[in-house]
């Protein structure tokens, strides 16, 4: 069953075509990778799915419902959350508050109760915090609960972004270069985490990544973009040996000499 369908998606900025006529389907509970050289239009593609950009033409369907024309907060309520290529945490807030902000739509608004510190409301606050703590423990950040997010080490910040994104209980999780800047050990931990999230959280994962080892190891299916065009798609083994993909990455001449 397809959870996410993208149909003929095109985005033009003035005369520049960032993505052109992209069609893809993402199966439920799969791990799908979108790869391509820098400037291929991958992040633009993510920005259209999350409604940060409005597509020039084409359609995006989540479980059969079109997302085009919705606002970013509506799309995320529908069940798509993401992490960012250049980390965008709420740096001046604590680690746990970042996760609680991710849980926004699941929290209840008790204005009066909170101000009066009613016991029942306090219990509810505690519950939300316990939930947030569990998520932090799951990604391995339980030691930094009350640290300011901006003070975390780089790898930890990446994991906190994931924690914040899964706190919203998404159906589809978009990871934009989750392994960027990580050392091999951190990347290994991340790979395990992504595998585990898929089975344990019943979430569909779409990721943009440059680390080919990670992509080949983890993905069920791969889409390759180059200059805004979809140039190839298939299982990792098919992509590995695809002539057009090798050309896109290495340049045509180099590929022929190889």
């Amino acid at each position, binding site marked *: 069953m397809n959870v996410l369908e993208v149909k003929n998606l095109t985005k033009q900025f003035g005369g520049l075509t960032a993505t052109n006529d992209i069609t893809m389907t993402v199966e439920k509970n799969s791990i799908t990778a979108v790869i391509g050289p820098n400037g291929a239009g991958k992040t633009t593609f993510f920005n259209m799915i999350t409604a940060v950009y409005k597509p020039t033409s084409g359609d995006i369907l989540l479980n059969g419902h079109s997302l085009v024309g919705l606002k*970013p907060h509506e799309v*995320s309520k529908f069940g798509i959350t993401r992490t960012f290529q250049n980390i*965008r945490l*709420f740096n001046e807030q604590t680690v746990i*508050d970042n996760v609680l902000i991710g849980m*926004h739509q699941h929290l209840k608004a008790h204005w009066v109760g909170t*101000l009066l510190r009613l016991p029942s409301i306090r219990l509810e606050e505690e519950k939300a915090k316990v939930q947030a703590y569990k998520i932090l423990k799951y990604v391995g950040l339980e030691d930094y609960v009350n640290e300011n997010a901006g003070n975390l080490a780089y790898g930890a910040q990446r994991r906190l972004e994931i924690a914040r994104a899964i706190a919203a209980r998404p159906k589809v999780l978009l990871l934009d270069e989750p392994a960027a800047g990580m050392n091999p050990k951190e990347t290994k931990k991340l790979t395990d985490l992504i595998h585990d999230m898929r089975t344990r959280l019943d979430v569909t994962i779409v990721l943009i990544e440059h680390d080919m080892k990670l992509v080949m190891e983890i993905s069920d299916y791969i889409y390759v973009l180059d200059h805004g065009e979809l140039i190839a798609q298939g299982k990792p083994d098919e992509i590995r040996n695809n002539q057009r993909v090798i050309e896109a990455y290495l340049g045509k001449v180099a590929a022929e000499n190889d």
Partner: protein
Amino acid sequence: MLQHIIQLLPQVLVDGITLGFVYAVVAIGYTMVYGILELINFAHGDIFMTGAFIGSGFLFLFISLGLMSSLPALLVFLIVIILSAMITGGMGVAIERVAYRPLRKRNAPKLIALITSIGISFILEDLVRFIAEWKTGNYIVTAPSLFNHTFTIDIHSIMPFFNNAKFQSSFIVVLVVTIIMLIGLDLFVNKTKWGMAMRAVAQDRETASLMTINVNRVISVTFFVGSALGGATGVLFMLQYGTIDPYIGFILGIKAFTAAVLGGIGNIRGAMFGGLMLGLIEMFAAANLSTLTGGLFGSEYKDVFAFIILILVLIFKPEGLFGKATIEKV
């Protein structure tokens, strides 16, 4: 000279704290909106003024209905302040919808929104003046008093180097209510989901919206809370000082804004502290300037004194006392 200053200290504290808490609550309205929109909402001072007039309007209404004698003063006060806060809160939301949101949608420069807020400020002043003159024949209104019992703190008999301090019962009301409002706001911002969303939007609007937060709603909530607090403070001001006119919001607004800058604009606790500090400095200056300068400057120079302190603080700490130095993003 020092002896004279010490003698007056209890009264300076009483007056300074009253005024300081008024500044503090109004300053919060400036700082919250600035934190979230980077807009100096000059209309906020006039929301405060409108609150004072709405409150006195309710009191006159209660008198004409003959309710004042049958209901206890405290109950009348609670009804009036809550109703006034709700109305000014709603006004804040409406102003944001009609005047600021369309500008935001079109990505207008922030300067345009600033000019708009000055325009709104004039509209409110003239509207209130028109209604006040129409109803009472004069735009300067003397509000009915609710709490005018005078107390004296007999501190002189315990510590003879102090003079006694006098205050009205409204002082206690102002103190209690503003403290409740400040604590309530602090809880709201730090504990509730909309408070947390507010902080998230203030830091990074786009990311917040990708975390299911409805940014427009957060902005509406911010305006509601800030304006309701401002309006309620207007009611307190009316009760404490008695006479109001449509222009009280201007000067007080500037000072509250100053307090917000002093505390570090965008920082809520900073605004509380800045307000309190400004109130105390101002009252200290009012009581002692003439002594300090040997009669050269009278108490009417208190604002100059307060602003000199402000300028000194900002020279050494331009981001304000609690503000974070901002790093320009390139």
